[in-house]
């Protein structure tokens, strides 16, 4: 299968890390989606990354849906989202807080990236940064409670860890002045632990 999109995107990266953890072999095509829209549109009418093209030519879009399908393909021992019950609900919740955090961090980043300087609206950046910090604060509490374990209290790594770590790493990289390492020390330590593993480090932004 082929993963389209650069690892700078936290959504692309959470899919890449997940595939690594699931032991799936994939080809990576880091098409810059804003510069080469037609190349992405062929596989995804929304012209968005990540897009995953399966070996039979079928394409998967939007990271939450891609990961849902990959989990089923990976099977019970390798899936990153528990199949059902309270454990699924909990991992899903932490994952949702993580992707919501990414959404808000992206809004803050795009304000500067896709507006000419004179049209950048600073209050809007701050509004989104505040929401991103709210999500990271929640995940930091989870990391504190988890100690040496995993964020959602699972007995092995889950999607909550993958997405939670990437939400932090992306926001910290894109918004260094937020001082996240000081604001969220437990999450920061957790992320350092994740980033040291091959599944994460081999797909660094």
């Amino acid at each position: 299968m082929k993963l389209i999109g650069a690892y700078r995107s936290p959504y692309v990266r959470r899919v890449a890390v997940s595939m690594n953890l699931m032991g799936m072999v994939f080809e990576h095509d880091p098409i810059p989606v804003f510069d080469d829209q037609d190349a992405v549109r062929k596989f995804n009418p929304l012209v968005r990354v990540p897009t995953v093209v399966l070996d039979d030519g079928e394409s998967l879009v939007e990271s939450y849906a891609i990961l849902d399908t990959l989990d089923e393909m990976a099977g019970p021992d390798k899936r990153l989202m528990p199949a059902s019950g309270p454990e699924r609900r909990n991992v899903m919740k932490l994952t949702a807080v993580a992707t919501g955090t990414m959404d808000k961090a992206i809004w803050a980043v795009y304000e500067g990236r896709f507006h000419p300087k004179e049209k950048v609206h600073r209050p809007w950046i701050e509004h989104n940064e505040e929401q991103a910090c709210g999500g990271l604060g929640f995940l930091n509490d989870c990391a504190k409670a988890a100690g040496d374990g995993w964020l959602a209290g699972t007995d092995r790594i889950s999607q909550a860890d993958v997405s939670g770590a990437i939400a932090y790493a992306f926001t910290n990289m894109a918004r260094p002045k937020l001082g996240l390492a000081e604001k969220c020390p437990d999450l920061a330590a957790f992320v350092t632990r994740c980033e040291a593993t091959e599944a994460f480090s081999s797909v660094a932004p």
Partner: protein
Amino acid sequence: MKLIGGYRSPYVRRVAVSINLMGIAYEHEPTSPFNDQDSVRQFNPLSRVPTLVLDNGETLVESYAILDTLNELAEEGRQLIPQCGPGRRRVMKLTAIATGTIDKLIWSIYEKRFRPEDKVHEPWIAHNEAQTLGGLDYLNDCAKTAGDDWLAGGDRISQADVSGSIAFAQTELARPKLEVAERFPYLAVLATRCATMGAFASVAPS
């Protein structure tokens, strides 16, 4: 359970319609996170809607995760996403196209809503509208292929129909100049069919 957020938000609305179709009773609290951030924040650290508060006090956030949990809570036969296999993959894909379409629509709407007029950047609105149209066009092709069946095929409504018709309806409402009814006639028929159902009509955007 309690659903927080106004039906003007397509994400809130797709949760509301889904709960209706599942036959689950709920209380509705149309708090706007933009006007009253603190009251949403006590339930959701992201201050975002929809937020769903379950009867045991547990809160669910982000519509895709809320719908995943509700699907598991729904009675047998009332789920909107098949449990596994190709049927699930198909419904997830069409639903993902629909939510991606909604995301882009929201980007184009917010560009005018949350900044002074002299800071509105028209090319950014156009960029997001083009992506919205790309998603609706794909769903229109699906609706054409489906004929009298539901969007993902078959005779039972699924999350693809809920989210796909809401993506269309919301774009039509917020962006009349895109003339989506003329561009996407098959999807328009599906959206009309949905809009007349009690599950949709009772939670119309106000």
